[in-house]
Every structure is written in structure tokens, then in C-alpha cells.
């Protein structure tokens, strides 16, 4: 018998899908305050380094345009590596 106290399962793809749509829209930042340069995002995608990219990484989760750009950079990187 199922345990009534058991938490509902959250599927990985469900969580990832939600996170993507949430992070890509919830933080518009139209003034682009504190946004890193594109080259920093590319550098972080290719060679992530905590000392160098900690603040960029923090910023990504609070700025939808940068989050979306980082997703694009990652997608480009993935395509390039697949070729």
C-alpha cells in the first residue's frame, strides 16, 4: 500500500523543463544590470572555473537574458563537440 506521507515523484525531465521555462522568463532585467560579457559566458561554457566564474554563475540564475544566452552558448558548444 502506498505511504500517504510519501512525497509525489518529480520526474527529472519535468523539473528540468520547469526550471528552463522559469529561469528563461522570470527575471527579465531589461536594463541588463550586472550582465557579464558574452565572451565570459563562452569561456565559462568551455572551461568552467569557480574562481573565475562564480559571480557569472550566480548572475545567470537571476537574469533571464543571460540565462537564455548561456543556454545558447551551451547548445552551440554541444553541437560543435558533436561534429
Amino acid at each position, binding site marked *: 500500500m502506498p505511504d500517504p506521507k510519501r512525497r509525489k515523484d518529480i520526474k527529472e525531465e519535468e523539473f528540468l*523543463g520547469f526550471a528552463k521555462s522559469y529561469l528563461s522568463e522570470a527575471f527579465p532585467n531589461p536594463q541588463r544590470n550586472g550582465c557579464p560579457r558574452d565572451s565570459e559566458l563562452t569561456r565559462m561554457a568551455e572551461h568552467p572555473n569557480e574562481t573565475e566564474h562564480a559571480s557569472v554563475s550566480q548572475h545567470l540564475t537571476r537574469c533571464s537574458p543571460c540565462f537564455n544566452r548561456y543556454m545558447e552558448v551551451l547548445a552551440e558548444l554541444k553541437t560543435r563537440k558533436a561534429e
Partner: protein
Amino acid sequence: MKLLGDPAVIANLLEEAAAIVSRRLRSQSSRTDAQQIQKVPGFLFKCFMRKVNRAKRKQVVTVSLREVAQSKPSWADPAAEFDMKILVDEFLDHCDFMTQDMFLRRVEGFSWEEIGRVYEMSAHNALERVRHVFQQVRAKLKI
């Protein structure tokens, strides 16, 4: 009739209604006057409309089941969406640099093998690292 759409379905329903009327007419003799069919076209129409209404009701159920099967995500309702937002925020707050970046790569569709390669660890270790934080946060939030 527009609701039913398919003319073949309508023809089927009419046929079924006609069969009912025909059966009733055959058994007329054993029925009392009150139970006998007075106007055949009217009775046929009534039977047909009953069939149509039943079919329409079934159609609604079919559509609903299809919608459920295509399944809206569990966060489609506002309360669940709110829970998920809190979960994402808390999860990201609890991640260190590496775990967060692993998660973002996963969001973008990287496999655990690819993520592991970036951080020079096995796919399993990469997965476990992210999963561990996720489970911790879920337990803390009781979501």
C-alpha cells in the same frame, strides 16, 4: 450534428435508432395501448436524438481523457507551480558553482557523460552530485 462531425457516425446512430424502432414495432402486439408507438417518425426522431446525445457525452469524455493523456505538467496548477518555483530557487541556492553548472548543462540537454567529462568525473558521480542537492532541498522543503 456538427458536433458529431463524421457522417458515418451519424448514419450509424440513425441505423441503431431505426433498429430500436423496428424491434418496438414488432413487439407492439404484446404491449398495452399506452406503451404502443403512436407516431413512428416522432419515435424514430426521439430515439435518434437520444443516441446522438449519448454519443456527444462520450465524445466529451474522450476529449478529456486525451487531454489528460497528453498530460499537462504537474506544475500546471498555480499551487504546484509555486512549489516548483520555490524548489528551483532553493535548489540553486544550495548548489555550489560546479553543481549549479552541471544542472544548467543538464537543463540544456547535456548527457551525464558529457557533464562528467567537463568536470573530469564519471557520469554517475555527476548525476549523484546534482541528485544529492536536489533530494536535500526536497526533504527540507517537504515538497
